[in-house]
């Protein structure tokens, strides 16, 4: 019994804490929810918008079912290094919810630190509200000593963002 009490107290205090490791973005699209959902879950659509400006999503494949894999390459249109990314689908509930793991490849083509992406779509009067969340910087595996992979992924990402910033993308 004391152990149980301890657990409760700990959870309570943890939930009170700030969440510095979670990224949350909301957006509203003037489109039906089915269409927005398709744009996330059908490769022909993803390749039309995936990735920031000055990158094109290529070789994008996804097996949209729980446990299914996805993978794609961000090809730089300004002659920089191509960046591979991929992951596994965790939850699928069309057309309102999908979540998957997300990782950049390291230099050896192995997935680096895995973050978790959660996408929720809510339809409001013909509009679709997207709630995007990314968390898990970094995973337990990474914490337990595979810091190199995480570091490499970070390096790549930082390198990429140095490029984007210089390009004045926004």
């Amino acid at each position: 019994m004391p152990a149980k009490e301890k657990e409760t107290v700990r959870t309570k205090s943890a939930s009170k804490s700030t969440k510095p490791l979670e990224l949350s973005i909301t957006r509203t699209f003037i489109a039906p929810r089915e269409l927005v959902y398709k744009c996330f879950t059908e490769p022909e659509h993803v390749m039309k918008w995936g990735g920031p400006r000055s990158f094109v999503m290529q070789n994008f494949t996804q097996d949209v079912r729980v446990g299914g894999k996805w993978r794609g390459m961000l090809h730089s249109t300004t002659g920089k290094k191509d960046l591979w990314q991929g992951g596994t689908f965790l939850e699928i509930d069309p057309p309102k919810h999908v979540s998957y793991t997300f990782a950049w490849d390291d230099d050896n083509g192995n997935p680096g630190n895995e973050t978790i992406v959660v996408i929720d779509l809510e339809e409001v009067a013909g509009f679709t509200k997207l709630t995007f969340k990314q968390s898990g910087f970094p995973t337990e595996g990474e914490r337990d000593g595979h810091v190199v992979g995480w570091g490499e992924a970070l390096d790549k990402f930082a390198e990429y963002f140095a490029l984007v910033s210089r390009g004045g993308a926004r």
Partner: protein
Amino acid sequence: MPYDHLSTTFAALADPTRRAILARLATGETTVNELAKPFDMSLPAVSRHLKVLEHAGLISRGRDAQWRPAKLEAAPLEKASAYIDKYRRFWDESFDRLDEYITELQLKNKEKKNARKRKGNR
């Protein structure tokens, strides 16, 4: 390797108890005893968490061997949040493109529908 620091910061922040400790320290420096209270944790357990946080540079501790009050250090946290901001820009820009694509897609669909209508009217 400047990103090693960032890895250490994220590793330290990955634990909810340690984040709660940081949240508590954000209100002011305090002792291990005070920190241990809301968590119902043993002092050595709290000390272990503090060691991880100290190693990551997220907190500093007083020299007094008896008290060693812990204090929040802002710099590494700012770096971590700057990193997440980079991800935010990555997605913001992607979603800008998605918005444009969806508009384009719907225009095309409308045109197709209208063309079909015109054909049907003939």
